[in-house]
């Protein structure tokens, strides 16, 4: 039955709905040149994503955190950008890549999950959400050749299994589950190195947040694209935790206190 004056579509995916009926709103690049010749000649494109975002598991769930810097070439474009997004009550995503499309994908993904839940009457499973995000990253592939990369890091609490889960992606939409921790972005490697040294299974929440901020601090130390704590303006990294109780922001006071601890420990070593 077709209803006049109301949007018509089969299926429960908002992403498919906008892609089909409102392509100008979807991530897909309609009418844009596919792969420029020089890209074909050069081979794989460099992924410009000046950022560090990370996630690590602990006893009760997962903590996900990110720095606050956005860059435009050698300029700082934004000092307080948020790279960690609440997606629904049980999951969050952090992004690395071109800010505009990244934020758009986060918003589209939020709408997608809520849309599905309302139409079907039940939320998607944790695995289902992670797979859907992979399809959205894949749909963005033509844009990657234009230099507009969107690289998410997704964490969710799997209510059925009773554990937090971390998913990473590649530009083709490939989805890989991480068992302990992961970091992406230009400072991702530095953050991973820190976490590799200090990570333990079954950390307490406080220790997990501290390790996350230490890893971000070290990444900011070595990577120009990653911002450290800005003491003058009072800007600190953002973090969220996803547990059996749902998603929660780590409070500004906690973040400030933990950052100060990390810096005090470093200062005592340097002097």
């Amino acid at each position, binding site marked *: *039955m077709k209803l*006049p004056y109301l*949007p018509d579509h089969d299926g429960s995916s*908002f992403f498919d*709905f906008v892609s089909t009926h409102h392509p100008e709103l979807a991530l897909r690049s309609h009418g844009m040149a596919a792969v420029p010749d020089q890209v074909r000649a050069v081979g794989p494109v460099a992924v410009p994503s000046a950022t560090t975002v990370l996630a690590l598991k602990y006893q009760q769930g997962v903590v996900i955190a990110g720095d606050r810097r956005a860059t435009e070439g050698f300029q700082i474009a934004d000092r307080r950008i948020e790279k960690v997004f609440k997606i629904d009550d049980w999951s969050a995503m952090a992004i690395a890549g071109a800010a505009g499309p990244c934020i758009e994908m986060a918003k589209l993904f939020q709408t997608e999950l809520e849309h599905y839940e309302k*139409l079907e*009457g039940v939320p998607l499973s944790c695995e289902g959400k992670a797979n859907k995000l992979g399809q959205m990253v894949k749909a963005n592939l033509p844009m990657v050749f234009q230099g507009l990369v969107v690289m998410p890091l997704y964490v969710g609490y799997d209510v059925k299994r009773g554990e937090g889960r971390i998913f990473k992606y590649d530009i083709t939409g490939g989805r890989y589950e991480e068992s302990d921790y992961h970091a992406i972005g230009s400072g991702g490697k530095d953050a991973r190195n820190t976490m590799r040294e200090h990570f333990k299974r079954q950390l307490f929440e406080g220790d997990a947040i501290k390790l996350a901020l230490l890893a971000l601090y070290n990444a900011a130390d070595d990577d120009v694209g990653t911002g450290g704590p800005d003491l003058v303006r009072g800007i600190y990294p953002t973090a969220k935790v996803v547990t059996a109780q749902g998603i929660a922001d780590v409070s500004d006071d906690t973040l400030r206190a933990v950052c100060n601890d990390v810096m005090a420990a470093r200062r005592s070593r340097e002097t």
Partner: protein
Amino acid sequence: MPMPYYVSPEQMMQDKAEYAKKGIAKGRSIIAMEYVDGILLTADNPSASLHKVSEIYDNIAFAGAGKYSEFENLRKAGIRHADLKGFMYSREDVTGRSLANGYSQSLGTVFSQEMKPLEVEILVVQAGTNHHANEIYRISFDGSIIDEKNFAVIGGKSEAVQTLLKEKSPSQVPPLDAALKLCVTALEQTANQKLPPEGLEVAVLDRTRAGRKFCRVSIADVRLILSP
């Protein structure tokens, strides 16, 4: 060549309306009622999984009476309309009025142009936030739209329920428990049978909730509220 029978437009519309009304009256009733924190939706619905009441957006809910497949289709289209608007503009730009207008246009067009009218009657309710008033829209099978105050009834013996509620409705906006008791009494009297909590579908748009205001009231909570 045989001539097709002439049927006057009046007759045709009347036949269609009668057909639709008959279909809607076969079902059971649903009541939307304002209470202190928002809007209460109570449906006489023995099924635990086939919902008659559901969420559309942050502070907007939907209730449908009549043919399940038809109002289910309308519900899904409404969610698409709301989510698209919220995504394109912003969450606060999604309004119950615009959705109710869409439904009205849609039902009106189907009623006048299609052979078979939709056998549905629907409610679009919006809990007012930031000191705005609640909105309750009742939309009929022919697209006519009525802006209701305090309460609205659709489906089944809706007129009988309405008269009952009008008599008993309190002068002030009732709290949740009083509103639910009133609704259940009205439904039981017109259905001439006792309705157990399992046979009720109850949901609220509660403006005191953070974020999405729609919330289903569990059978256990309904039993608790209704217990004397």
